[in-house]
């Protein structure tokens, strides 16, 4: 690999992102050790990432910081009647809405969470084992459900990630799982979803080198029940 090819391929970036296939990585490294420009490029990129990690690990969310930076110091401007009267009126409406609607609903939800209840579950294990049609789970829209899952243990993986793919193919949520946890059946309490349809639980194994491989895929159909579950 020569310098123009390395530049054209964005080899420095791909190398830092660990994206180069083995043969290209070898070829780029041969060039990298002999090319001052690429060496400084990779060293600069690596240093930037190290500094960025330190910076991002210590920084608070930027929205809060910016809000603090632009906060106006206009003293008692809010006390002017032209602003104060409409502001008070809006405040009263908000307080009234909270007392009459929001808080009672929250109390209901809290009481529901504290009470024991039966959650619907999808039989993911048997669905995969049989290789038959996906299992069906009936829930109310937004109602949580359980996903019992047996992940086949493989020594080559240091940890796992469990993802729920929605009918559109997007990731609804993902959950990191340690290799220790999969020795027994995992029971995942999945948050409720808004759309019925074909979902898939995807298990991805992560090696010590950070390589990811799909371990298993567990499809199920989610249907919205008309009546409440007990």
């Amino acid at each position, binding site marked *: 690999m020569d310098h123009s090819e390395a530049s054209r391929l964005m080899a420095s970036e791909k190398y830092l992102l660990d994206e180069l296939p083995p043969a290209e990585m070898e070829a780029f490294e041969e060039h990298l*050790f002999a090319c001052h420009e690429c060496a400084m490029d990779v060293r600069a990129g690596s240093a930037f990432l190290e500094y960025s990690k330190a*910076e991002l690990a210590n920084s608070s969310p930027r929205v809060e910081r910016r809000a603090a930076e632009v906060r106006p110091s206009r003293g008692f401007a809010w006390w002017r009647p032209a602003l104060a009267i409409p502001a008070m009126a809006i405040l009263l409406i908000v307080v009234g809405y909270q007392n009459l609607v929001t808080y009672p609903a929250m109390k209901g939800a809290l009481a529901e969470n504290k009470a024991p209840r039966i959650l619907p579950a999808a039989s993911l294990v048997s669905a995969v084992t049989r290789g038959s049609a996906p299992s069906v789970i009936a829930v109310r829209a937004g109602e949580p459900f359980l996903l019992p899952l047996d992940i086949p243990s493989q020594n080559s993986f240091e940890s796992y990630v469990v993802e729920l793919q929605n009918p559109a193919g997007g990731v609804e949520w993902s959950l990191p799982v340690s290799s220790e946890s999969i020795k027994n059946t995992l029971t995942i309490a999945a948050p409720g979803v808004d759309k019925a349809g074909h979902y898939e639980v995807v298990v991805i194994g992560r090696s010590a080198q950070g390589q990811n491989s799909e371990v298993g895929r567990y499809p199920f159909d989610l249907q919205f029940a008309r009546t409440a579950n007990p």
Partner: protein
Amino acid sequence: MQFHAFDRHYLEKLTSGDFRTQEDFVAYFSELIRLKLSRRLHSHSEVEDARQETFARVFAALRKPDGIREPERLGAFVNSVCNNVLLEYYRSASQQPTSDDEEAEANIPDPAISVIDVIANRQTQEKVRQILDQLPEKDRRLIKAVFLEERDKDEVCRELGVDREYLRVLLHRAKKSFKSIYLKRVAKEAMQG
């Protein structure tokens, strides 16, 4: 931009055991070797052992009368030595260094000193902060998820609605903004020795 002229004079100082030249040589290749090894070995200690072993062999070879005499081949030589060290690691994880190697290791300048110097440099840290602050929130989240949290790149890109090319270009631009101050810093360190 070129700071390291690996010319005949440099090679002579290196082979004669000039400490400052050796220090410069180690600082130049350390990060490259570390990156190469960390893509192939499992643990930090394995990477560090193999890095030390590579330098020990390079310096041992340089001291030999029939050792490397072409300065333009220095980089390729370091890479090939590193490849040999890796091959031996693959064959045997329990390799014990010889007494000659131990002696050579003791003389290798420690690049950690310069790394600490760089980290202590507030100007560099401030520049990184500025670059990160100028990025849109989505780009910051992308960098944080991929490099700090080490999450799966495809998964993160999918979540943020971007592709892998976007991530490459983001890194390229950030690196470009950072490179000028980094090169100044490296040049300053090389001059200070």
